[in-house]
């Protein structure tokens, strides 16, 4: 007997279309000339080029790490196109000048820029392949002193800020992929919230990989000055292609005294087909630094896409009384693999961190939670609470938990709990008996399982996340 849960239908990845836009790309491969070319195309100041080249030289001496619980064929770094931009002749003055094809793409993705501009009050920076295409609401934000622009613009308009904070949280030589990113990053978002300002709206970036064989290496830098508050959302999609594409981004957050940064991600890169062909390798370094006292950084992520996800959004709790939070839902289906989690490094006194991680494995997916909670000798009174729960759907998938707990002060307290379970037939039976069909029952149970995390997402994202979760699990539940 097939269990009732088995009859969910497989739905295609609906963001899998390709937009036919002329692109300006650099030749395949990576060497110092590629980096000089990228830097020249972007008219960067000398310090940035030097920084890139130094990172590249560090990268050459590094070897690709293989410790995560994921398997993939070797990546040929010389077979990647490191720069691809929609062709454009002159700088854009307003949204109306953006290529209509491009706008149509965003329309399809459900983030109509023009719509957004009028209605939703969410400022969007959209990144298409490697460059930032449009940033909405820029002027309105400027009124309150908030800088929200593409990384390239920030380099041009605010080089002193970029110079001060770039690499301050994730140094160029931090790890293999961070070094690669530092060498070749093409664009990204830049946010600066001045002292005491609460950003008047949610900021958002939409990433899209369009061109074939390109890698996307964007870099996001968010700086919240003392007492500032910002909520930032990030979404990602890519077309369906049967080759793997590399996405190696770096995100750096800096929260000064009393500042709050909330960073939410809905990651739905193309995950490959049901046999695991194609899809994005999402190898990302995300790290925040609670540099000032009483600052707070919250990472919320919903990971449904990518053929391989490998990232650990982390917080360095340096300021006394600072708070780090990590809420995550990671879903793997078919042959997806995820090795994700967080690192909470407690440096300051009375620092607190909370980790809630929900892993859902279906099909032949492999889901690993890997986390580090470290209490350094000065972290007097530091506290951590970790809960990581896994749900298994079907018997060909796997769920793994690898928490590392390292405590060096007796007044620090760490609690870690983890559980693994499955959707019970009895739960489904109960829902059906109350008149829900199987699909809705499963969706409800899964959403209930993830509730703690969804609650921490901004409203629009929470809705999107719930829908995504439903789509990701279709056809797999059994």
């Amino acid at each position, binding site marked *: 007997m097939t269990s009732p849960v088995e009859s969910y239908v497989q739905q295609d990845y609906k963001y899998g279309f390709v937009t036919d836009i002329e692109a300006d790309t650099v030749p395949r491969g990576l060497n110092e000339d590629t980096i000089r070319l990228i830097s020249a195309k972007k008219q960067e100041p000398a310090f940035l080029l030097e920084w890139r080249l130094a990172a590249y030289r560090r990268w050459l001496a590094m070897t690709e790490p293989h410790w995560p619980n994921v398997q993939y064929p070797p990546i040929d770094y010389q077979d990647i196109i490191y720069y691809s931009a929609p062709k454009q002749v002159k700088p854009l003055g307003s949204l109306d000048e953006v290529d209509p094809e491009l706008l149509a793409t965003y329309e399809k993705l459900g983030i109509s820029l023009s719509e957004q501009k009028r209605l939703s009050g969410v400022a969007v920076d959209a990144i298409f392949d490697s460059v930032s295409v449009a940033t909405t609401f820029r002027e309105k934000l400027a009124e309150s002193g908030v800088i929200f622009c593409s990384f390239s613009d920030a380099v041009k308009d605010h080089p002193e800020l970029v110079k001060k904070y770039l690499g301050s949280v994730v140094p160029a030589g931090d790890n293999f992929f961070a070094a690669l990113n530092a060498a070749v990053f093409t664009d990204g978002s830049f946010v600066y919230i001045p002292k005491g300002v609460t950003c008047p709206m949610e900021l958002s970036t939409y990433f899209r990989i369009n061109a074939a064989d390109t890698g996307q290496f964007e870099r996001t830098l968010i700086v919240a000055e003392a007492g500032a508050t910002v909520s930032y959302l990030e979404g990602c999609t890519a077309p369906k292609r049967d080759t793997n594409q590399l996405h190696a981004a770096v995100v750096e957050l800096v929260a000064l005294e009393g500042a709050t940064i909330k960073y939410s991600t809905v990651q739905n890169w193309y995950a490959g087909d049901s046999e695991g062909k194609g899809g994005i390798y999402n190898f990302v370094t995300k790290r925040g630094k609670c540099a000032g006292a009483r600052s707070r950084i919250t990472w919320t992520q919903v990971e449904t896409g990518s053929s391989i996800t490998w990232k650990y959004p982390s917080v360095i709790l340096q300021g006394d009384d600072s708070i780090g939070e990590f809420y995550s839902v990671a879903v793997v289906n078919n042959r997806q693999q995820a090795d994700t989690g967080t690192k909470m490094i407690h440096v300051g006194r009375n620092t607190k961190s909370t980790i809630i991680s929900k892993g859902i494995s279906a099909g032949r997916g492999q889901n690993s939670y890997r986390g580090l909670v470290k209490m350094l000798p000065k972290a007097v009174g530091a506290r951590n609470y970790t809960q990581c729960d896994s749900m298994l759907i079907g018997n060909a998938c796997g769920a793994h938990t690898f928490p590392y707990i390292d405590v060096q002060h007796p007044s620090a307290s*760490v609690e870690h709990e*983890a559980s*693994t379970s*499955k959707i019970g037939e009895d739960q489904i039976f109960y829902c059906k008996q109350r008149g829900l069909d199987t699909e809705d029952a499963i969706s409800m149970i899964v959403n209930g399982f993830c509730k703690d995390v969804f609650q921490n997402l901004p409203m629009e994202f929470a809705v999107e996340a719930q829908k995504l979760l439903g789509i990701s699990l279709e056809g797999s539940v059994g």
Partner: protein
Amino acid sequence: MTATAPRATEPGWLAALRREGAARFEALRFPTTRDEDWRFTDLAPVAKANLGAARAAGPLTEADLTPYLFGHAEWPRLVFANGRFQAELSRLTGLPAAARVEPLADLLADAPELVEETLGQLAVQPASAALVAQNAAGFTDGYAIVLPAGAVVDTPIHVLFVSDANAVLGTTLPRNVVVLGANAVASVVESYLSLADGVALTNTVTEASLGEGARFDHCKVQREGAEAFHLATFDARQERDSYLNSFSFAEGAAISRTNIYTTLAGPGAHATLYGLYLGEGRQQVDHQTRIEHAAPDCTSWEVYKGILDGHSHGVFNGKVYVHPEAQKTDGKQTNKNLLLSETAKVDTKPQLEIFADDVKCTHGATVGSLDAVPLFYLRSRGIPEDEARTLLTYAFAADVLEEIRSRPVVDHLEDLMRAWLAKAGRRGRAAAGRESA
């Protein structure tokens, strides 16, 4: 640098095992911290000490052992000094006729086929490969327990591994084998003791095969000297409905690492793993456990507790691995640590690796210091702070000791625990005195 050469009369399979072990250890050497399984425990001091084989022990008397004995006088007892069997101090009476409880060397000389399927066959985890290889290459003796189906040895068998001054700057490699037939029952207490201070290495390996419905209680008491290195690997294989109850108590040695592994190979097998580790000074106390659920309907339950004082470093690394066919697994793993000083340190890594969907697995880990509220409560009832601390620390650890089935063993470990706490209290007061002065 392995211990005494094996004797010439050994069967071919054993000679092969030794040859492979020697080659393997030559290739692997002692693990380094680059190895994920050894990340937190650095064996460099052990490798650097480059210890040869331990020399035979000097004359030992019953009086030398008295402080370490407990339980009832009629308990069977095997004594090994520097790895060599001490017949005059051992007592093997009151055992069922069909039971074989004797030094492994005797058994190998007489009926090696009884342990052929167990010796060298169970301890195969990669994390312990180097240790097991070194042991295989050079072991001389240890205990062997072979019980036929239905045999019951209901008193604990106390095995003492003693090292004296002649073991200093030497390596002792005890090797133990337990083969329990269907529904057989046995209980062992393994004590590791140093009668003299000094750098010495003990690398012990115990393999236990539990037949259908068998029950094995294994209690390991590690009280080696302050400069000693202690490495231990216990690996069991459990058939249908068998039950393993393991306890590891560790308070000695400069560097100790205890591996406790079991494979639940038959449906309905059950394992309970308990441990208590106490660290002070600059001690390094490391435990690694691995419970492999390889069959459906098995249950495992694990609780390890640690109390760390001084500059000691406690490590716990526990893994529950659930194979795809191990449906209806129920596994629970807990590790709790108490830090008594500002300089003590804990690394804990409880892990679940699950490949079956119909399972119930949880793990939890905590690290912290004594809760201020109960401390206040006790003081408000007139109990001085020192005593209140000792009482709460004792309470923290005592429940796990209760899991040992034999009461005399529990009592003995409770005494050791109290003595350790009294020492810790004196250290604490001395430190407080220095601060206020």
